């Protein structure tokens, strides 16, 4: 392709963008909304994931021992539990340790003179929080284990929430993307209509389909690009604000660093451009059949 031809394509596209400025703005707005909504859900779920990783690393299993288990049995169990796949760390807490810890929490005087009711126990950490359930089940089966406890259900629920958040984000994004494609294709249709005479002359002279098509594709892609850039800008400002607010007011919650957000920017530009290209190719198709 000649440089002059490329210049011609861009000149034509930008002329149309300006000529149909209201439709162009509507298209840009539609693409931006689609991507802002998608981006919000994405950031929400990514952050949830990120925070959960933190919480997860604190998820522990507590296995209470029957009183009948002796010293040898304890070290035997300790070894067996440590050998389970996915177990990161096993820590033995004796009755005495447990009551000491408890006294620390509720106050020493209150428990003075009462016989220690707490059993011996193990605290177990796992590598992958997703496996807490299965590991707990395996521990439960050992002889000498009275009861196994962990944040049953909570972990699963949190994962479920993240999962659904992503699905909903995707669905809403798909709907908005379809709306954007529709609006862009209507914008381009106006351009095609304004230039139908020129297009038919071009075809008679012997222009190839691609020669006719490029200016419209570029117009659509430019609309998509501007829309997605707008979305990135707005999301970046909003997220930055959120990040700082959370950091000041809720310092214990660690949000995904703002730099990570920019990793998604390129993907957003790509999606915007694709939406634009799709929208315009719908409108041109009919006009090329001369």
């Amino acid at each position: 392709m000649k440089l002059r031809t490329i210049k011609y394509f861009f000149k034509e596209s930008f002329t149309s963008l300006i000529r149909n400025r209201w439709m162009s703005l509507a298209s840009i707005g539609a693409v931006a909304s689609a991507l802002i909504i998608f981006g919000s859900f994405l950031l929400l779920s990514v952050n949830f994931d990120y925070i959960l990783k933190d919480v997860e690393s604190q998820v522990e299993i507590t296995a209470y021992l029957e009183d009948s288990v002796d010293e040898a049995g304890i070290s035997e169990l300790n070894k067996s539990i440590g050998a389970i796949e996915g177990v990161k760390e096993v820590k033995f807490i004796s009755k005495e340790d447990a009551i000491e810890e408890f006294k620390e929490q509720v106050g020493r005087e209150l428990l003075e003179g009462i016989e220690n009711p707490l059993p011996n126990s193990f605290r177990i950490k796992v590598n992958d929080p997703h496996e807490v359930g299965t590991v707990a089940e395996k521990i439960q089966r050992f002889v000498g284990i009275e009861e196994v406890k962990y944040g049953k259900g909570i972990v699963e629920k949190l994962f479920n929430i993240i999962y659904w958040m992503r699905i909903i984000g995707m669905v809403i994004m798909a709907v908005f993307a379809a709306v954007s494609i529709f609006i862009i294709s209507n914008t381009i249709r106006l351009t095609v209509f304004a230039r139908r005479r020129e297009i038919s002359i071009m075809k008679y002279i012997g222009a190839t389909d691609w020669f006719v098509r490029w200016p419209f594709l570029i117009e659509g892609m430019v609309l998509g690009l501007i829309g997605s850039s707008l979305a990135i800008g707005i999301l970046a400002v909003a997220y930055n604000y959120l990040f700082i607010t959370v950091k000041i007011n809720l310092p214990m919650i660690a949000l995904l660093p703002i730099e990570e957000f920019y990793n998604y920017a390129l993907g957003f530009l790509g999606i915007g451009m694709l939406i634009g290209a799709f929208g315009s190719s719908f409108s041109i198709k009919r006009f090329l059949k001369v």
Partner: protein
Amino acid sequence: MIEMYGVTKIYPGGQVALKDINLKISKGEFVFVVGPSGAGKSTLIKLIFREEVPTRGQIFFAGKNITRLKHREVPYLRRRIGIVFQDFRLLPEKTVYENVAFAMEVVEASTRDIRKKVPQTLERVGLFHKANAKPSELSGGEQQRVALARALVNNPDILVADEPTGNLDPDTSWDIMNYLDDINKRGTTIIVATHARELVDTMKKRVIQLEKGSLVRDEERGAYSK
């Protein structure tokens, strides 16, 4: 240059526009296609530059069967054909020069060629002095000459014109015909569909007469009617 064998064209509505046409037009010929309105003249022209495809029969252009041309091959056929319409079909917002240059831009000619060929071709149709005018500032005859220049600028093998003088007064029509004759004398094959009886009678070129879609007469140095 062009050969048609048993060409029939039936439009989707069932209208039979051409019936079993056989003809051969050689390189360098000047041919009038005549006949009353609705006889099929425009359809015959459209078949040549493949705006329409025949329902039956075969058409050859420079030895190549164009009935089975792929969609993406059509532009390259059209680059060998200059097309002129009754309504000129110029771009109103472009100047005379730009309208002609546009034809070369579309086929991605080099800037150097465009700068050389466009003034040359405008000179050929006597419009070099109007290069910067807009079509709306020109007379009908001048507009048609711009269209001629645009059709010629890419050096087509053949020029087809569908009622090129249909919108023009007799004097101007003569003028256009003289330009066409001149273009023909320099080697370009020319096919003109027309109603203009007087012009056909005077020019004494080959005449192909259509009636209700059938070829009823094909005569060298003929007149508009027998």
